[in-house]
C-alpha cells in the first residue's frame, strides 16, 4: 500500500497515481529503528526536504534493560538525482534560475508601484480609470527589456577572432525562456515596431532557430552539420550539402551567412580564377543580389546584410528594382557558359528562392516556422494582422506536418490565434511559474480583453483572479527554497486577496534559531507593517533562546516584544535560583543579565527587583568590608522593603543578610520610622508563616528572632539617639 512501510528494507514508496509513468522512484531510508514500525509520518520541511518520522509501537516488549530506539526522524532530500532525466541541453540550472528570479524582483516591484501610482492619480483626478496608455506602454517596455537582459544577451562577444570558415557565429547558448519572453515582447508590447512585425519574427527565428526542434532537422542543424563537414571538404561546390545549406540559409533570410558561404566557392581560389571566370562572376552576382535585398525595417544590426526601407512606398520601389535585377540575372545568357553543373543548379535555386517560388521555399526549409518566415521575406512582405498570419501559419503546418510542436511553436500559434487562454496555458505548461507571473504584465499591456480576463475575480478560484493565482503559485515556489523565500513577499504583497495571509504564514514559519535570520524576517515585517507578526516572532525567538540557556538573548527578545507576562515568569524562575543561593555572593554571573535589563526599570517587568537586589548585595558587601558607608546599604534595604514588587519570600533573607551590618555598628543606622517599618514587615511575615501557602526558605529557624533582636536593639539606640 502506498505510503506505508514495506516489509523489506523499510523503504517508503511514494505513490504517483498515474499508470504508465514508469516505476516510481524508490528511496531507501536509513532510520535505524528496528521493526515492527508502527507509524510513519511524512511532512515537508524547508525546500525539497522531506521529513520522515518512523515510530515503533509505544509498548512493545522492551527487551528488559536494553535501550532501543523507539523512533527517529530522517530528512530526505528529493532534489539530488531525483529527476535523472536529460530533458534539454539548454535547460537552465538552479543557480542560474535563482539569479533570474532575484534580478526580476526590482523590475517587477517598480512596475507595480508605477501601476499603483497611475491608478491613484486616476482616482484622484476623477478621470475614468484608463491609465495614460502611451506612458504605461513605455513602462511595460522598459520592464520587458530589463527582464529580457536578465535572460541572457544574444549579442556575440565584441572581441572575437573569427575564423573566416565559421558559418554560425559562436554565441551564448539561447534558452527557450528567453525565446518565449522575446516572442511575447514582440507581439504584445513593442508597439513602435508593430509595422515591422514580419521582420522581427525573422530576427527572432535567427536567434532561436536552434531551439525549435531536436528531433527534426532545422536550418540551424543543417548548417552546423555542414560546418563539421567543411574541414574535410576539398571542393565544396561538389557537395550537395553546400547548396542545401545555402538555400536553407537564404530562405530564412540569413543573408550574411549566405554571402559568407558563397565565398567558399572554389572559383574564388586564385589558381582557378582564370578558367572559371564566368562561373565566379555568376557566384559574385548572386552574392551581390543577396546582400542588397530590400528589407522593410528601420535598421539592421551590424554585420547583417540587406537594404533597409523604413516606409512601404520606399520598400515597394526598392523591391521592384531588386526583383527586376534578380529576374534579369536568371534570364542571363551567361548560364550557358557556366561549366559546373552543380553551381549552375545551386545558384539558379537561390535565384528562385529570391523570386519567391513557393515550391523552392518549401524544399529549402525544414520546420514550418522556417517556411512561415520565408513567406514573409519572399512572398508576402506586407503580411499584417494576426488573422492573416494565423492563416498562413496553418498553411505552413500543412506543408510541413512532420515538424511537430514544442513549447515555442505552441506559444506562437496561441498568440496568432489571439487566444490569451492558450498563451497562458502554453506558458504554464512549458516555461514554469516564473515566466507566467512576469509575462502577465506583457499580455495585459495593451489588450483590454486579456486585462479583464486576467483580473476578473473568479468564484471557482476562491474569489481570486487568474493573475493572483499565478502570483501565488510562483510565491509558493519561491517560499519552498531557503535562499529565495525572502523575495516571495514582493509577490505576495501584490496579491490583494490572499497575499497578506500567506505572507504572515510564511514569516511565522521561518527558523528562529539564528538571531541574524530573525532580524531579516523582522525587517520584512517592518516593511509590510506587520507589527503583530513581528511580536509573535520575537516571543518565539525569546522562548527558544531561553530554553537553550541563552537567558540574556531570551530576555532581550521578550523585551523587544514588550512581553510582560513572559518577563514576569522569567523573574519568578530567577527568584527561585537566587532564593537558593542567596547566601552565596556569586552575583558575578548575573551581572551581564542585570546590565541587559538596564537602568530603565520599566521595561524589565518583575525583573526590576533583581536589579535593586543586586545593588543592595553589592553595597552590603562593600559596607561589611568597610569600603563604603553603611547608610547607603540601609537605603537600598529600605527601598527594597518598601517596594511592592519585592516578593514576600525575600523579606526575611534580606533582613537576615543585614543583621551583621546592624549589629556591627554602635550608633543606630536607621531612624525610628524606618526601624518600625521593618519591624512591621517582620510581623507581617510571622503572620504569613501560619498560612499554608507560605514558602519557607533555607534559613536557620532562629532567623526571625535574630532579625527581631537586631532591629529591636537598633530601635532602642535610635530612640535614645533622637533628640
Amino acid at each position, binding site marked *: 500500500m502506498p505510503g506505508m512501510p514495506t516489509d523489506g528494507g523499510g523503504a517508503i514508496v511514494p505513490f504517483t497515481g498515474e499508470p504508465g509513468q514508469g516505476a516510481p522512484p524508490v528511496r531507501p531510508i536509513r532510520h535505524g529503528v528496528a521493526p515492527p514500525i508502527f507509524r510513519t509520518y511524512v511532512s515537508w520541511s*524547508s*525546500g525539497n*526536504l522531506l521529513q520522515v518520522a518512523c515510530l515503533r509501537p509505544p509498548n512493545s516488549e522492551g527487551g528488559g534493560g536494553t535501550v532501543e530506539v523507539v523512533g527517529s526522524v530522517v*530528512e530526505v*532530500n528529493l*532534489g*539530488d538525482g531525483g529527476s535523472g532525466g536529460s530533458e534539454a541541453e539548454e535547460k537552465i540550472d*538552479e*543557480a*542560474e534560475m*535563482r*539569479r533570474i528570479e*532575484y*534580478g526580476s*524582483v*526590482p*523590475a517587477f*516591484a517598480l512596475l507595480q508601484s508605477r501601476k499603483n501610482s497611475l491608478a491613484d492619480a486616476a482616482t484622484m483626478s476623477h478621470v475614468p480609470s484608463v491609465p495614460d496608455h502611451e506612458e504605461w506602454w513605455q513602462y511595460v517596455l522598459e520592464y520587458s527589456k*530589463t527582464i529580457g537582459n536578465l535572460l541572457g544577451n544574444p549579442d556575440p562577444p565584441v572581441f572575437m577572432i573569427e575564423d573566416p570558415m565559421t558559418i554560425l557565429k559562436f554565441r551564448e547558448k539561447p534558452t527557450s525562456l528567453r525565446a518565449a519572453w522575446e516572442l511575447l515582447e514582440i507581439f504584445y508590447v513593442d508597439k513602435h515596431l508593430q509595422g515591422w512585425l514580419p521582420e522581427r519574427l525573422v530576427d527572432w527565428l535567427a536567434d532561436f532557430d536552434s531551439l525549435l526542434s531536436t528531433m527534426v532537422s532545422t536550418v540551424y542543424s543543417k548548417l552546423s552539420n555542414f560546418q563539421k563537414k567543411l574541414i574535410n571538404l576539398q571542393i565544396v561546390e561538389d557537395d550537395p550539402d553546400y547548396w542545401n545549406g545555402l538555400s536553407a540559409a537564404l530562405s530564412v533570410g540569413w543573408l550574411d551567412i549566405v554571402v559568407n558561404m558563397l565565398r567558399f566557392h572554389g572559383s574564388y581560389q586564385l589558381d582557378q580564377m582564370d578558367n572559371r571566370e564566368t562561373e565566379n562572376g555568376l557566384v559574385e552576382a548572386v552574392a551581390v543580389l543577396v546582400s542588397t535585398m530590400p528589407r522593410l525595417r528601420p535598421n539592421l544590426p551590424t554585420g547583417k546584410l540587406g537594404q533597409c526601407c523604413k516606409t512601404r512606398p520606399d520598400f515597394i520601389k526598392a523591391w521592384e528594382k531588386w526583383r527586376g535585377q534578380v529576374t534579369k540575372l536568371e534570364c542571363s545568357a551567361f548560364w550557358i557558359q557556366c561549366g559546373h553543373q552543380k553551381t549552375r543548379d545551386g545558384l539558379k535555386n537561390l535565384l528562385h528562392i529570391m523570386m519567391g517560388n513557393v515550391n523552392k521555399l518549401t524544399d529549402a526549409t525544414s520546420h514550418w516556422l522556417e517556411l512561415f518566415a520565408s513567406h514573409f521575406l519572399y512572398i508576402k512582405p506586407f503580411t499584417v494582422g494576426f488573422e492573416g498570419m494565423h492563416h498562413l501559419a496553418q498553411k505552413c503546418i500543412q506543408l510541413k506536418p512532420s515538424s511537430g510542436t514544442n513549447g515555442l511553436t505552441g506559444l506562437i500559434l496561441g498568440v496568432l490565434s489571439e487566444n490569451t487562454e492558450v498563451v497562458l496555458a502554453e506558458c504554464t505548461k512549458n516555461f514554469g511559474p516564473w515566466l507566467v507571473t512576469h509575462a502577465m504584465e506583457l499580455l495585459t499591456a495593451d489588450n483590454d480583453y486579456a486585462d479583464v480576463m486576467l483580473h476578473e475575480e473568479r468564484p471557482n478560484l476562491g474569489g481570486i483572479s487568474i493573475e493572483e493565482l499565478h502570483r501565488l503559485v510562483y510565491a509558493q515556489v519561491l517560499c519552498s*527554497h*531557503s*535562499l529565495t523565500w*525572502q523575495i516571495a513577499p514582493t509577490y505576495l504583497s501584490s496579491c490583494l486577496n490572499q497575499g497578506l495571509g500567506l505572507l504572515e504564514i510564511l514569516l511565522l514559519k521561518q527558523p528562529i534559531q*539564528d*538571531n541574524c535570520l530573525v*532580524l*531579516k524576517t523582522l*525587517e520584512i515585517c*517592518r516593511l509590510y507593517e506587520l507589527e503583530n507578526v513581528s511580536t509573535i516572532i520575537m516571543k518565539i525567538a525569546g522562548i527558544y*533562546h531561553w530554553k*537553550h*540557556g*541563552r*537567558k*540574556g*538573548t531570551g*530576555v*532581550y527578545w521578550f*523585551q*523587544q516584544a514588550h512581553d510582560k507576562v513572559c518577563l514576569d515568569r522569567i523573574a519568578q524562575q530567577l527568584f527561585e535560583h537566587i532564593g537558593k543561593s542567596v547566601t552565596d555572593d556569586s552575583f558575578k*554571573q*548575573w*551581572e*551581564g*543579565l542585570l*546590565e*541587559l535589563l*538596564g*537602568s*530603565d526599570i520599566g*521595561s524589565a517587568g518583575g525583573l526590576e527587583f533583581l536589579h535593586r537586589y543586586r545593588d543592595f548585595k553589592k553595597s552590603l558587601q562593600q559596607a561589611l568590608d568597610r569600603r563604603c558607608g553603611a547608610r547607603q546599604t540601609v537605603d537600598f534595604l529600605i527601598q527594597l522593603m518598601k517596594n511592592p514588587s519585592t516578593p514576600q519570600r525575600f523579606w526575611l533573607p534580606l533582613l537576615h543578610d543585614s543583621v551583621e551590618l546592624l549589629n556591627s555598628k554602635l550608633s543606630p543606622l536607621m531612624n525610628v520610622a524606618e526601624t518600625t517599618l521593618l519591624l512591621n514587615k517582620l510581623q507581617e511575615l510571622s503572620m504569613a508563616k501560619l498560612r499554608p501557602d507560605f514558602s519557607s526558605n533555607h534559613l536557620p529557624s532562629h532567623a526571625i528572632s535574630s532579625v527581631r533582636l537586631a532591629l529591636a536593639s537598633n530601635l532602642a539606640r535610635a530612640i535614645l539617639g533622637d533628640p
Partner: protein
Amino acid sequence: MADSPSFRRHPLASSVDLVRWLPSSSTSPSGRLLAAAVHDPTSAPADSSIHLLPLSDPGSPLASLPLPSRATALRCSPAALAAATSSGSLHFLPSSFDSDAAVSVPGGAGFHVGPVRGLDCGGEEWVTAGEDGRVHVVGGAADGRVVARRVWDGKGMSGYEAARWASPVEFATGGAGCGVQWWDRRKGDAVVAQYNGIWGRGIVTGMVHSIDIHPSRKHICVVGGSSGTIFAWDLRWPQQPIPLSGVGLNGTAEPVCESEVWEVLFDTYTQSSDIISSASARILPVMMCSEDGILAVVEQDERPLELLAEACAINSFDIDPQNPSDVVCALEWESIGVLTRGRDAMAEE
C-alpha cells in the same frame, strides 16, 4: 538596472555571508584575492565553506576550506585567515592557503556552544565572543597547535555579537541588549567600562552587530546595530556617546537607513570634510552596510554619502587595507559586488 562603471556584481551561485580582502603579496601570481564565506543549503547536507577568490574572476575559487556549519565571522591577519561558525568552532587557514595545514578549535562545552559572531585578530592573539556569553583568547602554542583560554563565561546571561581589539591588552565586545563592554586584560580580564548604547524608535536596548576601533584613536569605538543605529563611544566620556546615525535620535542628521546595520568600518579613503581633522575631536568617517541594501559613509554632523542602494541586503563588506578606494561587499542575492572609488575607476573604463 545597469551597473555604474565602478561597481560590478559577480554571481556566486550560493549564499555569501561574509567577504574580506586578503592581504595581497606582490609574489602572488593570481593578483588580488578575496575570501568569502559561502553557504549552500541546496546540497545535502548543507555545504558551508570559505572560498578564496581571485578579484579578476570571482566566480571560480582558487581554494576552499570546508566548514562544519555556516560561517558567522571571518577575519584575516597577515599570518592566517580565521573563520568562526554557528556551531561554535574556529578555523584557521595559514596564508599559504594550503587547506591541509588548516587548524581548528572544535565547538562544544570546551569552547563555544552556538554561534561565534565576535572574532578579531590582535597581533599574536585572536579574541572570540559568542552568543553563549563566553569570551576566549586564542593563541598559537609552540607546537603549531592553537590554544584557547577562557577569559569569561557569561553562562548565557548575555550574548555577544561583536568583538574588536583596541590594543594587545584591551578589546571591546558588544551584543544583544548589553551594549558595549571594554575589557582590560591587565585588570584581571575584566570589563572596565560599559555602555548600553543609544537606540532609536523609543526602544531601550538594541543589538550590537559590529564594532570598529581606529588604530590611531584607540579610545573610540564606533558601533553599528539595530534600527539603523551607529554611534561612537569614547572611553574618556563613557556616558556621552556621539550619535552618527539612527532613527528618531535627536540632534542627528537624517538616518542613513532604518534597518539593521550589519557592519561598520572606519573609512580611511574618505577625507573628512574637516581639514584639520587629525587634531579635532570629530569622529572620522565610517562606512556601513545594512539590511535594506545601503552602503554608505557617515560622518558626524554631515549628510551621509550613499555609495550603493541595492535591492537586497548587503550582509558584509570590507575595505581593502592596501587600496582603500576598493570595497567588496556580500549581497544577499548570492553575489558579491566590487566597488571602485575615485579617478582610477573612471580611467579604467
